[in-house]
């Protein structure tokens, strides 16, 4: 699987995925990770918090790592969404592969080519340096209401 960076590929990921493990999710409402997770939950995704600091975030049980999240959650994890520093991503990529996740997603400002290669060699889609919330809003509607250049040119109604 290649690095996904185009509208069709991102739309495919967001359409097919239902469950997002948010690694590094903060319990503080004003942190970007909370913004993103709250938004995605409001738009129908199941959020599984992963952060050793908390037992619970947003009313959901919070797991210390991806392996325990995979065991604890009743449904398969589609996206591993990483709010961690670039250097901490390769072990998360290995965990994402091990738990059978379909997408390794590195948030805005985060790139790690080693992790990207690990995950894509194992057949995962890889997204780097993009925010899951911003991309959802860009492609599924909403971001244009913030005056952002979505790059979407289409004569079809938004779905």
């Amino acid at each position, binding site marked *: 699987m290649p690095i996904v960076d185009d509208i069709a590929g991102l739309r495919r990921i967001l359409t097919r995925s239902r469950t997002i493990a948010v690694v590094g999710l903060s319990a503080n409402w004003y942190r970007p990770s909370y913004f993103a997770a709250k938004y995605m939950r409001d738009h129908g995704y199941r959020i599984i918090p992963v952060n050793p600091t908390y037992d619970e975030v947003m009313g959901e049980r919070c797991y210390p790592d991806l392996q325990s999240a995979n065991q604890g959650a009743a449904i398969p994890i589609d996206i591993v969404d990483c709010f961690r520093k670039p250097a901490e991503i390769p072990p998360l990529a290995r965990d994402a592969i091990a738990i059978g996740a379909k997408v390794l997603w590195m948030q805005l400002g985060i790139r790690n080519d080693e992790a990207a290669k690990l995950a894509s060699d194992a057949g995962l889609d890889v997204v780097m340096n993009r925010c899951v919330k911003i991309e959802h809003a860009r492609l599924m509607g909403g971001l244009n209401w913030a005056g952002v250049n979505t790059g979407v040119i289409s004569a079809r*109604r938004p779905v």
Partner: protein
Amino acid sequence: MSDRKFGFDTLCLHAGQIPDAATGARALPIYQTTSFVFDSVDHAASLFNLQTFGNVYSRISNPTVCALEERVAALEGGRAALAAATGMAAQTAALLTLAKNGDHIVAARTLYGGTYTQFAVTFAELGIDTTFVDPDDPNDFRRAVKPNTKVLYAETIGNPQLNVVDLAALADIAHAAGVPLVIDNTLASPYLCRPIEHGADIVIHSATKYLGGHGTTMGGVVVESGKFDWGNGKFPQMTTPSRGYHGVIFHETFGDFGFTMKARMEVMRTLGPTLSPFNAFLLLQGIETLHLRMPRHCESALAIARHLAEDPRVAWVNYPLLAGNRYEALAQRYLSRGAGGILTFGLKAGAEAGVRFIEAVQFLSHLANVGDAKTLVIHPASTTHRQLDEEEQRAAGVLPEMIRLSVGLETLDDILWDIDQALATASR
């Protein structure tokens, strides 16, 4: 896979507007409403916390206005945009997002008079000082930078001097100083020049001019490139919790459109110079033909400039792409598709002949605007710059005999005919 890069003309017609989700309307609906209902209390809370994108109140955002914002952002090659009631309001929103009491601006001294007064008087009274420098010498900008400088500011084409600035050189100086280059691109329009491609970080428009193009509607737009590093230490308002919006850190939360979000949620929300949905609709209708109008404005302006340069009654003609013009080389570099529709000229018979010229034209409109579909004419020394004495007028680039033409889309021979018959009357 990569996404198709659509052409400028396609963006003029499509960017920012996909068919309406509710009705399928192909044209842009005018959402003439002050407010938008919440689905639930939780939805309302998410909107107010900016955790979801959506509309709350049209002072902050409105779907019709946002279509205009996205379209101008796309045309300028920017990341995001914020519309305002006028060009002056757009500029206010941009600059008050960047600078506060105690900060400093370095600006070209050839700015449009309204901008000059905004900086020299209004902002000065708010505690934001401006050093005005020679726009022909980029090093003059460099020399004026101080530790509290937050903005370098210039116009792609100055008004009424029609000077062209070296955008890339100014961008290098701004970035070496760790501050954004803010460019007013009104007289070029993104059809002729996209300052972001030359290093500008923020672009401002009076959409009242060529974007709207019809002289019907006031409006302004601020475009953010998405490329400036707000985390460089000079802009704590972007990287620390906002006092104006309950602790949000705009740069961290919104990344490359954090500046636009801050301008919207703090300055636009609290000062309130919002663009109306109806005006946004009218401006957007204008933009749909920008790519057809601008070449004609430029072709006619150049033809008129050449015609006047040959006329023995004319002392001088100023148009950036006219052979021998002082700014010809910069115009060829930054305005290769045309130098816009504005030109100035002076009559050998002097200022009083200029007044007679204005009074003798038949269908050229005597008024204080530029960028209309109709040809406009004005004698700045007796109107827009009347309050200045001759020395001050010369310092502002306004010679006593100067006549400014904003060349419209009428039949070129008719414009030339009206100019010639007015020249005959004025020179008698």
